[in-house]
């Protein structure tokens, strides 16, 4: 494989370093090509010696890239592009300074199995042929609920009885399926994941704006860490709640230093209120299950504890954590947001409620949401007591033996699951999405009056407002994006850009950039992130450098980053085997306060799929 590495300390390199915001930075520049032709949109990643940090840039239309890192000593450089083999080079940066020229020469995959293995989970899933629409919908909703299916970990070749065992384990983890759905999915997985390569028909349009972007990843915790959500503090550090281990992670993006803050112990057993449930083995070892977080104006973070039915506050200065009991019949406090008056609002998914907490009086008000049907009312009434009884037998899943989602053939329809929540900046009203009831709702913040609307696409998940009071909603079950104009009460829907016609995406969360008003969306089945411009209605797709990237809440930093936690469950399923904080800087790292530019021209060219020989 022809390549050149030329390290020189010339004026050009010195100028590059002076221009960089990083002190003592090393820089790499060069090209990524194949057969003498430039590869546009290729990802060039530098990985530090400890494999704790990964910085990535994209090549431009001429295949050129420039990457600056603050790593020292041995590093690994990797060039990656769809349909090509990775080109990986070790390099020693010594004291971490210097300008290095490094050209990559990629070779196309020529073995079908290797090409197939390099494709995203979304491509692998095209091998699954479901017997009916309902079972496919249940699969998308429930099997992709916490993780990709189709990646290296989850596309293992197994016979039907082995898949049935896996399905039962997943149902124990709260996948809500009818017996028929479980059977159909089991059969489909056993037939579909047969170890044979998948046909590569993905198309990866190159968009020149992507070439300006930088992706930084900081690896956190171990293979069992589960940083459910991340938030950026006023101090520009990233904070993340580890639902599995009752820990708050703190990342200083400037130094790369990572600290952890343990939540106080509880009188509850492991698994908290859900002690009777066999939660994901090894991952859920805590009692609180911190899930979602948001920072208040006084600097304190507020976070929900899904397993202990509490919310907590974390002071990033004193590091003090304080917990507040919501009440143990209020099950699974979920997404949390704070309104303009400093009131903390959060959804309570398994109890069909929204919680309101006033930090001044330290009082909770629980808003009971519409039941949306008889059986869902039964769930709301019976589930807390059932969990209490189930807790007599820790981790034995007694609830599965009596749950009406099975015997009444309801599946996920047994729950409403109020999930995402946000505050309308125009009138201060509180809006939520019901994931399984396919509704959005409005709560009047003063009177607590509730109004609901059906969504045109299924699976409304973590919604967010733009500055004009338009509600943007990811449609998890239908690869879509919805906009709800709260003034006219009308929906608009948009289909997410897929890599192939027979794939799908599972958009988990989105966020509207406070300055540009562009909508950033997680995709999660194809290791990408989307930017949607409401003015032009164009999507820009950013490929993520790490396979099995599963992003949650998106937050914006002052230096132009769109950040999240990469928290596929389990983390050991992620390439490299560990979770991370991840920030995409669409225009590179900016001095704090600089407004990133709006999206430029749309896609310029399309990389055609290639034919490869079967092995």
């Amino acid at each position, binding site marked *: 494989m022809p390549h050149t590495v030329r390290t020189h300390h010339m004026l050009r390199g010195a100028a590059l370093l002076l221009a960089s915001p990083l002190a003592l930075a090393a820089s790499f520049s060069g090209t990524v090509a194949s057969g003498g032709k430039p590869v546009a949109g290729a990802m060039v990643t530098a990985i530090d010696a400890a494999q704790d940090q990964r910085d990535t840039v994209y090549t431009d239309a001429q295949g050129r890239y420039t990457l600056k890192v603050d790593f020292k000593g041995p590093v690994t450089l990797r060039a990656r592009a769809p349909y090509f083999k990775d080109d990986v080079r070790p390099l020693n940066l010594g004291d971490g300074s210097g300008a290095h020229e490094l050209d990559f020469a990629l070779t196309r995959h020529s073995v079908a199995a290797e090409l197939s293995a390099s494709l995203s989970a979304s491509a692998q899933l095209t091998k699954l042929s479901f017997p009916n629409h309902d079972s496919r919908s249940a699969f998308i909703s429930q099997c992709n609920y916490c993780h990709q299916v189709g990646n290296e970990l989850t596309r293992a070749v197994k016979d039907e009885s082995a898949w049935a065992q896996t399905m039962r384990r997943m149902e124990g983890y709260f996948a809500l399926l009818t017996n028929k759905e479980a059977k159909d999915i089991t059969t489909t997985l056993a037939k579909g994941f047969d170890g044979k390569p998948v046909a590569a028909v993905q198309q990866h349009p190159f968009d020149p704006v992507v070439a300006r972007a930088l992706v930084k990843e900081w690896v956190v915790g171990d293979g069992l860490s589960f940083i459910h959500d991340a938030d950026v503090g006023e101090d520009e550090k990233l904070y993340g709640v580890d639902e599995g281990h009752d820990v708050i992670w703190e990342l200083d993006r400037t130094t790369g230093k990572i600290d952890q803050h343990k939540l106080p112990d509880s009188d509850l057993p492991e698994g908290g209120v859900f002690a009777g449930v066999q939660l994901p083995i090894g991952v859920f070892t805590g009692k609180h299950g911190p899930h979602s977080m948001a920072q208040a104006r006084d600097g304190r973070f507020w976070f929900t504890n899904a397993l202990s039915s509490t919310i907590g506050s974390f002071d990033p200065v004193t590091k003090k954590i304080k917990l507040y009991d919501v009440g143990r019949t209020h099950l699974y406090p979920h997404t949390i947001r704070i309104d303009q008056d400093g009131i903390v609002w959060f959804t309570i998914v398994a109890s069909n409620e929204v919680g309101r907490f006033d930090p001044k009086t330290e009082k909770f008000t629980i808003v009971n949401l519409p039941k949306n049907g008889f059986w869902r009312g039964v769930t709301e009434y019976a589930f807390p007591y*059932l969990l209490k009884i189930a807790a007599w037998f820790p981790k034995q899943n*007694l609830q*599965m033996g*009596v749950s009406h989602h099975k015997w009444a053939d309801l599946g996920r329809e047994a729950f409403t699951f109020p999930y995402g929540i946000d505050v309308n900046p125009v009138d201060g009203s509180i809006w939520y999405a019901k994931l399984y009831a396919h509704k959005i709702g409005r709560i009047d913040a003063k009177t607590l009056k509730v109004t609901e609307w059906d969504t045109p696409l299924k699976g409304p998940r973590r919604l967010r407002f733009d500055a004009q009071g338009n509600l943007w909603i990811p449609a998890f079950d239908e690869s879509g994006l919805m906009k709800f104009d709260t003034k006219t009460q009308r929906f608009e829907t948009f289909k997410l850009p897929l890599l192939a016609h027979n794939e799908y995406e599972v958009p988990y969360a989105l966020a509207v950039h406070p300055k540009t008003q562009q909508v950033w969306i997680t995709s999660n089945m194809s290791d990408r992130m989307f930017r949607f411009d409401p003015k032009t209605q164009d999507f820009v797709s950013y490929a993520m450098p790490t396979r099995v990237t599963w992003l949650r809440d998106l937050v914006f930093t002052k230096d132009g980053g769109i950040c999240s936690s990469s928290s596929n469950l389990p983390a050991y399923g992620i390439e490299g085997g560990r979770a991370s904080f991840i920030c995409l800087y669409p225009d590179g790292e900016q001095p704090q306060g600089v407004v990133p530019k709006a999206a430029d021209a749309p896609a310029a060219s399309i990389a055609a799929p290639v034919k490869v020989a079967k092995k």
Partner: protein
Amino acid sequence: MQEFLIHLVIVVLMAGVLLFWAIPFIALAVLFFRRTARVLGEPTRLLLACAIAAAGIAPHFDAYRQPHPIWLRWWNGDEVSAGYALASFLITFAVVYGQMRLLRRHRHASAAA
């Protein structure tokens, strides 16, 4: 022991559902008990009526330990072995018969008082 207790708790919690599915059998048992008063003695009638009811209630536990009446399983075309079915029937019969004996004893005692 834990498994037994879990199954017991599940059966108690699911008793209503099991009895609902067994309504046709329970109705038949009551009818049988009433219509055979002139032909059979009470102990025999009670024994047979309880057997009919037990046949409608006897549960099969699926992979999630969820109990479903065996007759319903068979009707759906699911496989439940004869040995499992017999054991389930005998245990259910013992419980139903015991309950009915207690009930009748209590009723007789109340009538005598």
